[in-house]
C-alpha cells in the first residue's frame, strides 16, 4: 500500500505542515516528549545572521559577533563551507530554523532531527532541566539586549564594550556547577535588577569596612579569611564582591554569566544531543517509509545526507578533525537498541543491567540521566570500540614518543572507554582555577589558584585574561599554579610572571 505524502522535491508550507504532523504522530508512538515547536523558514543570509549570534534569535551587540559574521560570510561566499541545515534553540516553544534552500526531504529530515530529536532532549535531559529555563530565555535575551543598549547610551559604547570583553574572556568561568538558580521571568528580572542596584553598594561598603576599634589582645584579631571557601564561579564572585564596579557593570557581568550558564549543558552533551537527534530522524523517517508514506527517491536523498552526517574519517585521513559527535552518538544509541534487542554473550557480560530489556525505555533512560562523559563511560560497548577501531595514545611532554596505551582488544576496552570519556569531561578539558584568597585588610589583591592536573600548563592567553580580570577586580590579581603541594608558577597582573 503506497500513500505518498509528496513525490516532488519542492516544499510548500502545506507540505511542511503535513510532514510535521506525520513525524509528530510517529514521534508520539516512540514516547518522545517535546515542547511545542515553532518552525521558522529563513533564507541563507538570515542563517548567517543566526550563526554569528551563537544561534540565538536576539542578543546584545558586540564586535565579536560581527567578527564571527564576517568570517562566516567569507567562507560561505567562497564556498569553503556550507551552512548548517538547521539551528534549533532550547526554548519553549522550541524554535527551529529551516533554510529555504533545502529540498522537501531535507526539510523533513530537519523537522525530525530538530523539532522532535533535539526538542525532546532539551525537555528531558537532567542537565537542561537543572540549569536552563526554556520558557524564559527569549525574554531574558530581550531584557539583556535592552539593558546593554541603555548602558551604551548612558555610559558610552567603549565603556560597555570594555566590560563585555572582559566578561567574555571569563565566560566559561561564570557558571555554577552545583547550585540550582531559580528561574525568573523578565518582569521579575527587571524589578529585581533595580532592587539589586540599590542594595549592592551598601553591602560592599559593609564588606570593606575596617573594624573601628581593635581589642588590645592582638592574638584575638584573626585575619579574616575571605572568601571562606574557594570560589570557582569567577564572574559571580566579581559581580558580588569587586569593590569598584558600578552597579550597571555588575548587571552586565550578571548577564554574561546567565547566558553562559544557559549554554553550560550544551557544552556537556554534544555527543548525546546530536546522537539522540540523529537517531530519531533516522528512526522516524524509516518508520514513515515503512508505512509507505515516503517515496524511494525521498529515502535515497535522505540517506545520502544522513550518511554524510554520521561519517567518521580515520585519524590519518585528511578530513579528520576529531571524533564526529554525530557519528559517535548515533552509533551508541543504535548500539544500545541492538544490545536490548539482540544481545550477544559479550553484551550480557558488559551490560547485565539492560541487555535484553525494553530498548525504548533504556534509550530514554540513557538520554535523561547522563552527560557525554558518563554516557560514554556507561554505554560504550566493546563492539562499538571495535567498529570504530578506537585506540588511545598517551602523550607525555617529557617523552620523545607517543605511546599507544590501549587498542580495541580485550585488555584495552575499559581503558579506551575511560580515556574517551575523560576527553568529554569539562573538568578535565578546562583548567581548574578558583579564587582562594582576597586580601581584604591589605592591598585588596585577589589570588587565584590553578590546580594543575597531569602537568598541563595554561595557554599563552592566560596573561591577557588576567588583564581583563584585573580590570574587573580593580586591584592586583595573582594566579598561582600548584602541582600537588608545590607552587610551580605565579603570575601577577599588573606585573611580570615568575617561573619558580
Amino acid at each position, binding site marked *: 500500500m503506497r500513500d505518498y505524502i509528496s513525490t516532488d522535491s519542492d516544499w510548500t508550507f502545506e507540505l511542511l505542515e503535513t510532514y510535521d504532523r506525520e513525524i509528530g504522530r510517529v514521534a508520539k508512538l516512540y514516547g518522545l516528549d517535546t515542547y511545542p515547536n515553532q*518552525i521558522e523558514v529563513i533564507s541563507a543570509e538570515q542563517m548567517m545572521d543566526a550563526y554569528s549570534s551563537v544561534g540565538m534569535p536576539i542578543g546584545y551587540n558586540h564586535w565579536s559577533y560581527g567578527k564571527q559574521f564576517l568570517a562566516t560570510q567569507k567562507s560561505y561566499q567562497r564556498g569553503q563551507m556550507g551552512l548548517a541545515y538547521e539551528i534549533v534553540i532550547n526554548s519553549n*516553544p522550541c524554535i527551529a530554523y529551516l533554510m529555504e534552500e533545502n529540498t522537501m526531504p531535507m526539510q523533513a529530515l530537519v523537522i525530525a532531527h530538530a523539532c522532535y530529536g533535539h526538542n525532546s532532549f532539551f525537555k528531558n535531559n537532567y542537565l537542561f532541566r537543572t540549569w536552563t529555563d526554556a520558557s524564559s530565555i527569549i525574554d531574558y535575551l530581550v531584557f539583556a539586549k535592552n539593558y546593554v543598549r541603555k548602558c551604551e547610551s548612558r555610559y558610552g559604547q567603549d565603556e560597555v564594550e570594555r566590560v563585555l570583553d572582559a566578561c567574555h574572556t571569563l565566560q566559561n568561568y561564570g557558571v555554577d556547577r552545583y547550585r540550582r538558580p531559580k528561574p525568573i521571568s523578565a518582569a521579575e528580572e527587571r524589578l529585581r535588577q533595580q532592587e539589586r542596584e540599590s542594595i549592592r553598594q551598601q553591602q560592599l561598603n559593609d564588606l570593606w569596612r575596617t573594624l573601628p576599634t581593635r581589642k588590645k589582645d592582638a592574638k584575638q584579631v584573626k585575619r579574616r579569611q575571605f572568601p571562606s571557601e574557594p570560589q570557582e564561579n569567577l564572574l559571580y564572585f566579581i559581580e558580588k564582591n569587586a569593590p569598584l564596579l558600578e552597579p550597571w557593570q555588575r548587571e552586565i557581568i550578571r548577564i554574561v554569566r546567565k547566558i553562559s550558564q544557559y549554554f553550560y549543558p550544551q557544552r556537556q552533551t554534544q555527543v548525546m544531543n546530536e546522537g539522540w537527534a540523529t537517531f530519531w530522524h533516522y528512526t522516524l523517517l524509516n518508520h514513515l517509509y515503512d508505512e509507505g508514506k515516503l517515496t524511494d527517491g525521498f529515502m535515497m536523498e535522505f540517506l545520502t545526507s544522513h550518511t554524510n552526517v554520521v561519517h567518521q574519517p580515520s585519524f590519518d585521513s585528511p578530513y579528520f578533525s576529531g571524533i564526529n559527535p554525530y557519528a559517535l552518538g548515533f552509533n551508541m544509541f543504535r548500539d544500545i537498541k541492538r544490545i536490548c534487542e539482540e544481545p550477544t554473550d559479550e553484551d550480557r557480560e558488559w551490560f547485565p543491567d539492560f541487555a535484553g530489556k525494553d530498548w525504548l525505555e533504556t534509550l530514554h533512560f540513557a538520554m535523561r540521566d547522563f552527560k557525554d562523559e558518563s554516557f560514554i563511560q556507561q554505554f560504550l560497548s566493546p563492539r562499538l570500540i571495535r567498529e570504530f577501531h578506537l*585506540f588511545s*595514545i598517551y*602523550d607525555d611532554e617529557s617523552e620523545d614518543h607517543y*605511546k*599507544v*596505551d*590501549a587498542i580495541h582488544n580485550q585488555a584495552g576496552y575499559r581503558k579506551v572507554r575511560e580515556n574517551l570519556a575523560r576527553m568529554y569531561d569539562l573538568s578535565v578539558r578546562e583548567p581548574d582555577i578558583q579564587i582562594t584568597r582576597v586580601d581584604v585588610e591589605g592591598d585588596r589583591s585577589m589570588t587565584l589558584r590553578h590546580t594543575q592536573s597531569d*602537568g598541563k600548563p595554561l595557554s599563552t592567553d592566560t596573561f591577557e585574561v588576567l588583564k581583563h580580570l584585573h580590570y574587573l577586580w580593580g586591584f592586583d590579581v595573582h594566579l598561582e599554579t600548584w602541582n600537588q603541594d608545590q607552587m610551580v608558577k605565579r603570575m601577577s597582573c599588573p606585573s611580570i610572571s615568575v617561573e619558580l
Partner: protein
Amino acid sequence: MSYIIDRRLNGKNKSMVNRQRFLRRYRAHIKDAVSDAVNRRSITDMDRGEQISIPTRNTHEPHLTHGPGGRQHRVYPGNKEFQAGDELEKPKQGGQGGGSGQASNQGDGEDEFSFYITRDEFLNYLFDDLALPNMVKKTLAQSKNFKTRRAGFVSEGTPNNLSIVRTMRNAHARRIGMGAGKRKKLKELRALLEQEQQAAVPDQLKINEYMAAIEDLERRLKTLPFIDDLDLRFRNQIKVPTPTSKAVMFCLMDVSGSMTQDIKDIAKRFYILLYLFLEKNYEQIEIVFIRHHTSAKEVTEEEFFYSRETGGTIVSSALKLMHQIVEERYNPDEWNIYAAQASDGDNWDDDSPVCSQILTEQLLPFVQYFAYIEITPNHHQALWEAYTAITASHNRKFAMAQIRGPGDIYPVFRELFAKDRYQEAV
C-alpha cells in the same frame, strides 16, 4: 503542536550592527589597509571594495585554556596496525607543539583574519583620510547623479502627476467623438418631428415614435461618461544621468630627486580627489600624466608614480607641455580642462616668473580649475611667491596650499566642491 512561520521577509541584515562594531574596533587596521590599497590601485580604480586582513593575534579573544604540554591521553578512531605498547615518533617541533590531533583543530596556521569591505565603506575610509566634509562625501559616494526631467505625457501614473488640462481635453474630445453620431441622428429626428408637428394633419403616432426615439437618444447621450479612465493623462518624469560632457584632467608632478615616495603617495590622493569629483560630473574623463624635472614628458600612470628620476627642476617645462597638449588634442570648446599640480616647491629661480606668466596668459583662460599643492615642511620658494600673486587675481579658478598630510588636501578643492560651484559644474 507546531507553528510554522515564514521569516524570510524579515530583515536579513541583523548582523549589520555587530559588523559595524567590528569595523569600528579595528578602524586603525582598516585605515592602513585602505591606505595601502590607495597606493596600489590606479587613480581611476577607487570605486570598489577591498579585502582587509588583520593579524589574528589582534582579533583573538583570549580564554583560560590548557596550553600544549603536560601529560594526556587522547582517543582516535581508525586504528590499522597499532598494538598496545607501540611507540610513535612525535613530529619534530622543538619538543612540543601538540600532536597530530589537537593542533589541526585550531585552524591550521592561518594567522590573518580577512574580510571584505564594500565600495561605500572603502570610499568612506578614504574620505576620512582626506578629511572631507560630509556633504562632499555624500556627493562623491553616490554611484551616479540623476536628474528628473519632464518627458511628455503618459496614460499611466500616480494621481499627483495627473495633468488636469490634458485629461479634460481628452475627455472633451472623447465626448464629442462618441456623441457625434447620436447628435446627428437627434438633429434629424428633431427636424422630422418639427416637420410632422407643423404638417396639416399631424400624425400622432409618428410624433410619439419620434419623441420616444429622441428621448432615448438624449438618455444615451447623457450616459456618456464625463470623464473616463481612457482620458487620464499624467505628466511623465524620467531620470536622466547628469554627466553630460567631457573632461580632461592633467596631472602635473615634479619627479626630481627631492620628491620621495611618501610625497608621491600624498600627491596621489590629491589626484584621486580631483578624479572622483570629475567622475561625478562628466561622462567621459581622460587623464593626462605629465611629469617633469628639467624637461617634461607625458607618461603612463605607472611611470608617473613609481619611476625614479633625478636632476634639477624647471616647472615651466610641464606647463608648456600641457599647453601644447591642450592645443593639439583638447579643444577648450569641447573639453572641460582641469589640472592638478604637485611639487615639493623646488624650482629654478629664474623659471618661476615664467610659470606665472604661462599660467595666467595661456592656461587659466582655458581651464575650469587649476589646483596646486606644495608638499613640504620647509619654507616656501620662488614658485610659491609667484603663484600667490595669481591666487589674488584668479581666485575662482586657481587654488593652492601647502600640505603636510592627506588631511590638508581638501582645502585646495574647497572652492571646487563649494555648493554653487558644484551646481555650476553640473
